[in-house]
């Protein structure tokens, strides 16, 4: 064995090919099957895609690095299910390009945040977190309420999403900018189209509660309110397969 290596380390190309070969095995065995094994992702016939406003809010969530402190992945542990709700299923993030499971909870998990608090609470919290949660270490995001939402290239965003596999149809792509504004303005002409395209359960509200054009606050709150609510499938088998942590009193 060491004799063979004695020869290998005299050959740069051989060393390169060997490194590539040896290093590739692990990834191939663990990642490739995830795309082909059917059981990896559950069925969720009732699942809908993000509306343009929610997608814009999700992009703000990404832009501000919210994922650095908030996970969106409830593990199959008893205390997590009791604290946050049913554990997360793979299908729930099947349209998440990229996923935002996160790796750190400086703040709480947000996978089931939708409809847990009112829009007003979210706006107050984002304007000044400590006004509603004393002791919070979250930064304030007050400028979101002052920044008008850019909807100009929403159609291009939906097209790119479709290119990576999210089932947006032609109509959704064409009307993306109008739908983004319509969802935040219930009285406008655009509101009805959102219901037509994304379903009756879609929340059409003035999320930031302020008059005028939709802001980034509207988009972010719309996104936070849809978290965990694109499908109900996780609630079906809610308490099965949960593991109890050993410790605790």
């Amino acid at each position, binding site marked *: 064995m060491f004799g063979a290596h004695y020869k290998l*380390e*005299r050959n*740069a190309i051989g*060393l*390169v090919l060997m*490194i*590539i070969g040896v*290093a*590739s*095995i*692990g*990834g191939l*065995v*663990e*990642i490739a099957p*995830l795309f082909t*094994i059917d059981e*990896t*992702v559950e069925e969720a016939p009732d699942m809908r895609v993000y509306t343009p406003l929610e997608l814009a809010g999700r992009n703000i969530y*990404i832009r501000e*690095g919210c994922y650095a*402190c908030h996970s969106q*992945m409830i*593990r199959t*542990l008893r205390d997590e299910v*009791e*604290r946050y709700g049913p*554990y997360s299923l*793979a299908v*729930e*993030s*099947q349209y*998440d*390009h*990229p*996923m935002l499971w*996160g*790796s*750190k*909870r*400086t703040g*709480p*998990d947000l996978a089931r945040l939708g409809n847990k608090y009112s829009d007003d609470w979210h706006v107050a919290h984002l304007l000044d977190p400590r006004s509603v949660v004393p002791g*919070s*270490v*979250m*930064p304030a*995001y*007050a*400028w979101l309420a002052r920044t008008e939402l850019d909807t100009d*290239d929403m159609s*291009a*965003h939906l*097209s*790119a999403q479709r*290119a*990576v596999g999210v089932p947006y149809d032609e109509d959704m792509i064409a009307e993306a900018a109008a739908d983004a504004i319509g969802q935040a303005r219930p009285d406008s002409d655009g509101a009805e189209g959102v219901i037509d395209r994304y379903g009756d359960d879609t929340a059409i509200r003035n999320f930031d509660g302020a008059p005028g054009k939709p802001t980034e606050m509207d988009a972010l709150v719309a996104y936070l309110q849809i978290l965990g609510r694109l499908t109900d499938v996780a609630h079906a088998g809610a308490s099965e397969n949960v593991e109890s*942590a050993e*410790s*605790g009193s």
Partner: protein
Amino acid sequence: MGHLTQGERELALLTGALLLALGMLMMVMAWGDPLSVHGAMFGFSGAAVMAVTLRGMFAPAPDENRFASYYDAPSKAGIVIAMIWGVFAMFIGDWVAWLLVFPEMTFDAGWASFGRLRPVHTTGVIFGFGGNALIATSFHVVQRTCRTRLPDQFSPWFVLLGYNLFCLIAVSGYMLGVTQSKEYAEPEWYADIWLVIVWVAYFLLYMRTLARRNEPHIYVANWYFLAFILVVAILHIVNGLAVPVSAFSAKSYSAFSGVQDAMTQWWYGHNAVAFFLTAGFLGMMYYYLPMQAGRPIYSYRTSIVSFWGITFFYMWAGSHHLHYTALPFWVQTLGMSFSIMLLIPSWASAANALLTLNGAWDKVRTDATLRFMALAAIFYGLSTFEGSFMAIRPVNALSHYTDWTVGHVHAGALGWVALIVFGAFYAATPKLWKCERMYSPGLIEVHFWLALSGTLIYVFAMWNSGIIQGLMWRTYNDGGTLAYSFMDSVNAMYPYYIARAFGGLLFLLGAVVGLYNIVMTIRTAADTLSEAEDRPLGPILEPAE
């Protein structure tokens, strides 16, 4: 410019012109998008390259005897640049640590909030500080261990400066809100493409240098540098696959989603630790530690076993970041199993390093430079043990999502990566600038103790806060309900966040002392050493051109 041949000057001019044209195109076409800011940065860089090249265009051609000496100017520049990145990014790290104590310090502005500054810190230390250190030392090491000069004078500068352009685009992007949100792979698609170009040049440069070697064997340090260059390329390309919103938009959407994206991301993320933060720095250790100790590596066969063990096992371990999640159980189990097996090659490397010091422990006591490297090997052993331990499912149930992970990362990043870099820099700087020793050995001692105490305070604070957090989240009352609200656990973190920020401050101060010492060494260097002992093998090195 005097270093470059006429042909290389023309190549540099062409590269500058292409960058300028590309930058202008991006700036104009993407007007109003953050991409235009980065276009301006590309364009400015191109213009700067052109200006410098034109000023030196008609300088005398480089000495024909240049092949009788090593080409160290890029390594020298890389060391200084790495130290500047280190001080900057550690400052940002300490700043965001204080943000958790004083969350109001964000000036009501997006760029100053925790979420945008955190990747500035991580990218700044990993890629800015660590990456420049790897490039600088790999150029230094590959020439000595192959007894040959780098094949040309253009590509090392293209790699070093191009890489730094990538780093600048990355960190400025985060502040502007440009991010892919994939941890440690945040830069957007166009920065990713630029890094691929730079990285291919790095690989070719390395292979061309190896091809010119005058030693029959490729030394073990170079195996690690090669694995670092190759595997980081594979990881970066696969994890970065994305579809941009348009050719002139900074925003893109990842090709993967949900569970597949999570697995790909942590396959990348964990192996960025393996092949960026471990393999590359092991390469550094395998050269500078034996050189400074004046002892050969303890066991050649252990180096072989641990090298291939690390290259093979690490690639399976990423899924331990996803225990108890929606990732299929069999993948979690594979990740856990290989993470535990990984301890064998990891400890073999650490033991190989420490046993090399047998017969030189008196030097460890008196020479702070060698002590930096010895302590780095100890921290490497400790944090790889901790890593394998945390990859065990029930342990991970407690540690995941908590500050324990942050503590573990910093035991590795401060205790292993940064200490081996400082040791290597203190060993290489006097040699590169041809003087007897560093400007102040006393300041190396000061730096050593600041770094050690800072690391210990940091890691102990995060162990405490992480374990308390994890236990509070899972503690039940006698009545069977959860005992603590999430805010209870946040409030409990307060003293530890202060301790962590203080530990980080000590470490930062140490880095500032190190930068000062290196700068003063350069300023007072007087070429007191002859090149006789530090030069490639004789005239056979003359190229056949």
